[in-house]
C-alpha cells in the first residue's frame, strides 16, 4: 500500500502535488478524455503544463490571491486543470453545477464576487452573458469549445487556448514564476468553495483547505486503498464534494487514472470501454441500472428470460448463505458484468440516500462489491463506509479512522438522535457567513441535522433529516423518504412524494417511469400519446395499485399508503421540485401542489387539472386532465364498484 499520508504531507496543495507527480511520473497517464471517438491521453506532464499555462494566464490578467474563480461545464480535463490553476495563484475555486439555474448562478457568482469563470461551451457562456448586470465583478469568461461563439463580440470572452497562450508567453519570460507561485501556496488556506446541496433556500459555500482535503483523502485511501493501476470514470458533478475527493484529491494522491466521457449521453458505453475499478453512483443510478437490466430482460427471448431467472435465483440463494454462485456466474452474471462495464470493479459505493435492500442484493449477487458511505460537504464528504465483509444494506458502516469522532445527540429511547461529528480535516466555516457556521458548528463539532443511531454491530444507521421526519395528526412518526425509497424500488415508479405530515393518513403522489411503462403499455396494446395521457390510463392505475399494495404489505399498518394518484408530469429539478442531486424538495412540492394535496385529503375521487408547464427553453404547454385518486384504505368503498 502506498504511503498516502506521507505524500499528502510532502505536498499539501493540489498544485504542489501535481508538480510532484509530474516530476516523478511525468510520462505516466494521468487523465483520459474521449474526443472524436478516441480516448486522448494526458500525461502528468501535459496536465502540469495546462495548469501552469492557465495559472500564468490568469496572473497576466491581474488575478491572484484571494480572488474567486468560477468553473462550470461538463467534466473535462480543462475543468480540473482550471481548478488546480486557480489554487496555484492562491485564488479560490467555485464549481457550479452545469445545469445551474440563472438565478442560482447569479447568486453564487455575485456572492463569491467571481472575477473569472471557466465556461466550457456556448451553452454555459450564454448563461453567463445573460446574467450580465447581475454579476458586475465578472470580468473574464474563458471558454474551451469555440463552437457557436462567432456571434459574440463581448470583450470579456476569451478562448481557453488563448488564456493558456498568455500563460505560456509569461512562462517564457519568467521561467521561475510558476514554481514561486506554487511554493507560496499553503495547505491551510481556503482553496475550494464548495456548494452545499441546499435542500432549502440558497446554497451555502463551505470553505475547504486543500491540505485538509488531501489529508482526508489519505484517510479514505488508507481505508479503501487505490493506486496508479486503478481506473476511475469521472461522471459525478465536479462541484460536488465527492467528485472533488475522487477526481482531484484521490486522483492526485494515489495517481489512479481519471477518465472523462465523451458526453453525458455516452456514459454507459464509455464506462464499459474503460471498465473502471471503482465507482460511486447515487442510489437512483444503481436503481435505474437495475431497472434497465430488468426491462432488457422483459424484451429478450424466452430462453434468455429463463436463464436470467435461473441465474438470479441461484445467485441470490448463494448470497443468502454468504457465498458466491459459480453456476450463476457462468449463466448470467459474467455476461451482465461485462455488459454494464463492471468486470474490473474492486470497489463500488452508494450514498446520499438509502438504496433499496433488493437492489443492494441484486448487485451483490452479481459480484459488485457494493458498500454504503455517508458524509457531508462540511466534513469533506464521506467519513463512514462499510468494512469489507460487514456490509449491511441498512447501515452506512463505520468511521474510516479513529480520529473521526461520531456521537448521537439527544437520543430517544431507541437511541435515535442527531448525528454529530468532528475530525481534524473538516471545513473552515461557511464563506462570508459566520452566523451559519456558528449555527452548525458547536465546540468544534459539526451538527449534521440527520437522525440516526448505532446498531448492535456498532455501525451507523442514518434514518433521515431530523426535520424531515414527519408526524401524522394521530402522532405517529414516519420518514417519508424511507417509504418513497421503498416505492421507488418498483421499476414502474420513477419518483414519488409521500404526504401525511399533520394529516390523518399517508398518501402518495407518484410519477410513473415513462421508459418502462410505455414499453409495458406497448406490450399490452394500450394506446397512449403523451406522458400525461399514459399516466391517466386506468390500466396503468391498476398496475401501480398492485405495486403500492405490495409495498404496503411490508410496512406497519400506521405507515401504509392509504391513497395515491399518478401525477401528470415528472418532477423536475428545473422546476425546483428536486434538488440538483435529485432529492425531493418537500416545501416546494407542498406549495406548488397544495390544491392537489388538499383535494386528496378532501376525499375527492377526481381532481381537475388545468395548468401550464414551462420548459427550459422558455416554451410552454397547457395541460388539461383529470387526476383520479385511488383509495386503498380498507374501509373505502370499492373502487371497482364505483366505476
Amino acid at each position: 500500500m502506498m504511503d498516502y499520508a506521507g505524500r499528502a504531507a510532502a505536498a499539501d496543495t493540489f498544485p504542489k502535488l501535481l508538480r510532484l507527480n509530474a516530476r516523478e511520473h511525468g510520462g505516466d497517464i494521468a487523465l483520459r478524455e474521449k474526443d472524436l471517438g478516441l480516448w486522448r491521453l494526458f500525461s502528468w506532464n501535459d496536465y502540469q503544463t495546462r495548469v501552469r499555462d492557465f495559472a500564468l494566464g490568469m496572473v497576466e490578467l491581474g488575478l491572484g490571491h484571494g480572488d474567486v474563480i468560477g468553473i462550470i461545464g461538463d467534466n473535462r480535463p480543462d475543468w480540473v486543470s482550471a481548478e488546480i490553476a486557480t489554487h496555484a495563484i492562491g485564488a479560490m475555486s467555485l464549481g457550479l453545477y452545469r445545469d445551474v439555474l440563472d438565478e442560482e448562478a447569479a447568486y453564487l457568482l455575485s456572492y463569491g464576487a467571481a472575477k473569472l469563470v471557466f465556461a466550457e461551451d456556448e451553452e454555459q457562456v450564454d448563461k453567463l452573458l445573460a446574467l450580465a448586470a447581475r454579476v458586475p465583478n465578472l470580468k473574464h469568461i474563458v471558454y474551451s469549445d469555440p463552437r457557436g461563439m462567432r456571434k459574440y463580440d463581448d470583450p470579456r470572452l476569451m478562448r481557453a487556448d488563448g488564456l493558456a497562450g498568455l500563460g505560456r508567453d509569461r512562462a517564457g519570460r519568467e521561467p521561475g514564476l510558476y514554481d514561486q507561485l506554487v511554493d507560496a501556496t499553503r495547505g491551510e488556506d481556503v482553496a475550494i468553495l464548495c456548494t452545499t446541496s441546499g435542500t432549502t433556500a440558497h446554497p451555502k459555500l463551505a470553505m475547504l483547505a486543500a491540505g485538509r482535503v488531501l489529508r482526508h483523502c489519505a484517510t479514505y485511501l488508507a481505508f479503501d486503498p487505490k493506486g496508479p493501476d486503478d481506473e476511475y470514470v469521472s461522471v459525478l458533478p465536479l462541484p460536488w464534494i465527492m467528485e472533488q475527493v475522487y477526481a482531484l484529491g484521490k486522483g492526485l494522491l494515489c495517481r489512479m487514472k481519471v477518465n472523462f466521457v465523451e458526453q453525458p449521453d455516452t456514459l454507459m458505453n464509455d464506462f464499459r470501454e474503460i471498465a473502471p475499478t471503482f465507482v460511486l453512483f447515487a442510489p437512483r443510478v444503481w436503481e435505474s441500472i437495475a431497472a434497465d437490466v430488468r426491462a432488457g430482460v422483459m424484451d429478450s427471448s424466452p430462453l434468455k428470460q429463463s436463464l436470467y431467472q435461473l441465474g438470479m435465483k441461484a445467485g441470490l440463494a448463494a448470497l443468502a448463505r454468504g457465498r458466491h454462485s459459480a453456476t450463476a456466474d457462468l449463466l448470467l452474471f459474467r455476461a451482465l458484468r461485462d455488459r454494464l462495464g463492471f468486470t474490473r470493479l474492486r470497489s463500488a459505493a452508494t450514498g446520499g440516500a438509502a438504496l433499496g435492500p433488493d437492489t443492494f442484493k441484486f448487485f451483490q449477487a452479481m459480484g459488485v462489491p457494493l458498500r454504503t458511505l455517508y458524509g457531508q460537504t462540511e466534513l469533506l464528504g464521506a467519513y463512514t463506509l462499510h468494512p469489507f465483509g460487514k456490509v449491511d444494506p441498512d447501515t452506512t458502516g463505520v468511521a474510516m479512522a479513529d480520529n473521526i469522532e461520531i456521537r448521537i445527540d439527544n437520543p430517544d429511547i431507541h437511541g435515535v438522535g442527531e448525528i454529530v461529528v468532528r475530525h481534524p480535516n473538516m471545513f473552515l466555516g461557511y464563506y462570508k457567513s459566520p452566523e451559519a457556521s456558528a449555527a452548525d458548528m458547536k465546540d468544534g463539532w459539526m451538527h449534521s441535522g440527520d437522525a440516526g443511531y448505532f446498531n448492535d454491530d456498532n455501525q451507523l444507521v442514518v434514518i433521515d433529516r431530523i426535520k424531515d421526519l414527519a408526524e401524522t395528526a394521530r402522532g405517529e412518526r414516519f420518514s417519508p423518504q424511507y417509504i418513497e425509497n421503498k416505492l421507488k424500488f418498483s421499476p414502474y415508479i420513477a419518483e414519488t412524494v409521500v404526504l401525511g405530515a399533520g394529516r390523518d393518513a399517508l398518501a402518495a403522489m407518484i410519477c410513473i417511469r415513462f421508459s418502462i411503462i410505455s414499453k409495458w403499455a406497448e406490450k399490452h396494446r394500450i394506446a397512449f400519446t403523451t406522458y400525461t395521457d399514459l399516466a391517466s390510463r386506468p390500466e396503468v392505475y391498476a398496475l401501480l395499485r398492485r405495486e403500492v399494495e405490495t409495498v404496503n404489505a411490508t410496512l406497519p399498518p400506521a405507515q401504509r399508503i392509504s391513497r395515491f394518484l399518478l401525477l401528470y408530469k415528472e418532477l423536475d429539478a428545473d422546476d425546483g421540485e428536486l434538488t440538483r442531486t435529485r432529492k425531493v424538495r418537500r416545501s416546494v412540492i407542498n406549495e406548488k401542489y397544495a390544491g392537489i394535496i388538499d383535494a386528496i385529503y378532501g376525499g375527492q375521487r377526481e381532481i381537475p387539472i388545468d395548468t401550464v408547464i414551462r420548459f427550459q427553453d422558455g416554451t410552454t404547454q397547457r395541460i388539461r386532465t383529470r387526476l383520479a385518486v385511488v383509495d386503498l384504505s380498507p374501509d373505502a368503498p370499492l373502487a371497482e364498484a364505483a366505476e
Partner: protein
Amino acid sequence: MAHTLELRGVSLRFGGVRALTEVSFGVNEGELFSIIGPNGAGKTSIVNCISGRYRPTDGQLFYRGRDITALNPNARPSLGIGRTFQNLALFHHMTVLDNIMVGRHHLLKNNFITGSLYWLTGARREELEHRRKVEEIIDFLDLQPVRKATAGTLPYGLRKRVELARAMALEPQLILLDEPMAGMNFEEKEDMARYIVDLNEEFGMTVMMIEHDMGVVMDISHRVMVLDFGRKIAEGDPASVLADPHVKRAYLGEEDEVLVDPDNTPATTESAA
C-alpha cells in the same frame, strides 16, 4: 453577381401534369436560401432537378456558371452538391457511422483492388483521415451516443440528423435539404434549425432548404422563395415575402386567381390581382 446556383425558366411536366412552370431563381454563395409552398407546389421537384433525378422539360440549370442541366446525378456530388431526402433514404441495417462513411465514397481514392493492399497503397491512412472527418461531423451533430447504433432502430428525428450527416460527409459547397424538419417535434426542430445555421455559418456551406414550417424558415433564412402550383409567386427577404399578398392568399387559402386558374400566365395574374 454571379449566382452559385441558378435556374433559368425551368419547367417540368409529367404527361399532362405541370410540376414546375418556368421557375427562375438564383442562390448566392454562402446564402441560406429557402423554398416554401403548400403541398404539391413543386418544391421537391426543384431539388430533384438540381440533384439530377429529374431532367427539366424546359429551361437550364447552372452551377458556378457551368450548365449542369444534362449532367448525370452521380456526377453532381463531385461538383460539390449534396442533398438529403424528404422521406428518409438511409441504409437501415448499417450503423450510423457506416451510413455517414458512405457519404465519403466519392472522395475515396482507393478502390477494392488497391484497398486489399491495405498498408502499401495508403488505404489505411486514407481510411483514418476519412474516419476523422466523419467523427468531426458526428461531433458537430451530437451523434456520439448513437455512433454504433443501427440506423433503422433510431427514432425519426435522429435519422433525419444522420441523413444530414451523410450529406455533410460529401463536403459539398452547396447542400440541398428537403424538408429537414418534417415530422419533428418542437425541440427537435429547434435543434435542427441550430445545426442548419451552424452548417451555413461555421462550415461555410451554401444551403438551399425546402421547408413546410414557416416559423423556422422565416427565422433562419436569408432569402425565401414561395412556390404555388409549380410557379414562383414571391422571392425576397423573409419580411417582404411574409407581407406579400400572393403569399398570404396561398397560405391562408383565400381565393386568388393563381389558385382558380393555374393555366393563367403569371403576367395575367399580376394584372388581375
